[in-house]
């Protein structure tokens, strides 16, 4: 069975990201999954093995890790030339898409992003126009280079015993033009990452101020979810931009999306309308968010949310 290269996303704090486990699960239906790790593979191999990686390629060293994406694309391109995989799968995240873009140019090859499923013949399903459209598409030149949207596939373990191959990397100077001089973590607490979370609790303008976002955070923590914010809330300075859900922020597709004090402008819906279940609390009965909510409460979120939080505590 041909190898399928899976470009691994990992963070120091959380290890292998959930999206990579999802992609490994998909890769098993297309061929033999080979994980490509940048940085220290030792800490990640067990997890990759648990989800079916038959092989792990590792590229590390400052040439790969100290520069923005270009060296990573070179490593993957070299692997494509030597291994001749059936496909290259990446996460449809900023870094995954950027590697995919460079790879496509290097190989004069097509690419697909925001993919939510791939069939055995390479036909991909994509969410387009902020989830309001569904497209079937395929790469018509070269091998499929496909970026998979987080939360599109249910990850399922399938233990394997991968061999680890340390790659010798030779990175050209043109890949070393953009140096990363500092990496600063701004994530809050131990909450799951926004795009990967199966539950997202978001606050909007109705939350009123930055301090009141504690209420949103409290409900998120009780549900084990991530915290999001609407553009109005971010623009007003209630919550940082990296938590913004919507057209100019993150796109999320969790099992449960809780919208608190969010009117549901098209700009916000663009980032969350593919969520499986949506519930909303808003004092305005005419708020457009209720048009897509499976369950809506018309009321004051400062009364409804504390009561809901208390109710969840009591049910435990």
């Amino acid at each position, binding site marked *: 069975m041909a190898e399928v290269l899976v470009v691994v996303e990992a963070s120091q704090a959380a290890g292998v990201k959930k999206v990579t486990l999802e992609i490994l699960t998909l890769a098993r239906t297309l061929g033999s999954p080979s994980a490509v790790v940048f940085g220290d593979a030792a800490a990640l191999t067990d997890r990759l093995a648990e989800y079916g990686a038959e092989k792990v390629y590792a590229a590390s060293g400052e040439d790969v890790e100290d520069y923005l*994406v270009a060296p990573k694309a070179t490593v993957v391109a070299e692997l494509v030339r030597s291994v001749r995989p059936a496909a290259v799968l990446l996460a449809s995240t900023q870094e995954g898409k950027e590697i995919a*873009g460079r790879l*496509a140019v290097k190989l004069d090859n097509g690419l697909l*992003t925001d993919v939510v499923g791939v069939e055995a013949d390479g036909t991909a399903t994509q969410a387009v126009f902020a989830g309001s*459209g*569904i497209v079937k598409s395929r790469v018509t030149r070269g091998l499929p280079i496909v970026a998979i949207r987080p939360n599109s596939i249910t990850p399922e373990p399938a233990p394997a015993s991968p061999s680890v191959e340390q790659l010798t990397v030779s990175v050209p100077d043109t890949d070393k*033009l*953009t*140096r990363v001089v500092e990496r600063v973590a701004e994530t809050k607490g131990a909450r799951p990452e926004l795009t990967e979370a199966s539950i997202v609790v978001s606050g909007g303008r109705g939350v009123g101020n930055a301090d009141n976002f504690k209420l949103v955070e409290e409900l998120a923590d009780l549900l084990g979810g991530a915290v999001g914010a609407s553009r109005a809330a971010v623009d007003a300075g209630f919550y940082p931009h990296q938590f913004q859900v919507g057209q100019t922020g993150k796109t999320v597709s969790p099992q449960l999306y809780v919208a608190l004090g969010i009117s549901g402008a098209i700009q916000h819906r663009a980032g969350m309308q593919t969520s499986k279940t949506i519930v909303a609390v808003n004092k305005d009965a005419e708020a457009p968010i209720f048009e897509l909510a499976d369950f809506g409460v018309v*009321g004051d979120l400062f009364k409804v949310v504390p009561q809901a939080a208390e109710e969840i505590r009591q049910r435990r």
Partner: protein
Amino acid sequence: MNIVVLVKQVPDSGGERALSESDFTVERGSASNVINEMDEYAIEEALKVKEAHGGEVTVLTMGPAGAAESIRKALSMGPDKAVHVTDDGLHGSCAVATSKVLAAALGTLNPDLVLCGAESTDGRVQVMPHMLAERLGIAALTGARKLTVDGGQLTVERQTDEGYEVVTAATPAVVSVWDTINEPRYPSFKGIMAAKKKPVQALSVADLGIPAGEVGLAGATSAVLEFAKRPPRSAGRKVVDEGDGGAQLVAFLATEKFV
């Protein structure tokens, strides 16, 4: 500093958007077409760099004849001139071919700094800055929320999922920006009048020395096979809080097994 800003005309993300039924390209006929929102932040940043360091700002657009309207709008904010790559043969170009065309056009302009939006609201593919950097052999600094120019040295604070990174590079470079970087100015009446007289150079695919078969639908590296609108969500239950709204909410979450 010779600055080029990439500006894309897109269907308004606030309206109904679709792919055309005949060839699955973005439907432009029925939609109201506007400057890609994020590009306005790139234009603003270009003008700020010019104001601080001198130079010239050129708008570069690839798009159909109708994109001329967005070019004038962009020029009304303050850039000096524009280049419009327009050619019927470009219709249906994929990202890979688009990057080939834009890289060739940038080659004729020889910029120190290329600014663009972090993504377009129609495709949201986010690959163009790195594709251009790859083709031109120059640096790419993507997702900037802050740009500092010090002579030929660029420093960018770049937003990531975990927080931010500080990245540096020397010019020439491509920098893409998020909407957190600045607040775009509104065109003044004077700006709107002046924009009408600013030069807009039209370039065809042949002008750029690219064989016709390498662009457009014929040269595309991927193909759309089907397009369907997602069925609209239907509203579910809506209750008015009469003192037990929170409890009812949790009862619903319990039936869905979230609590």
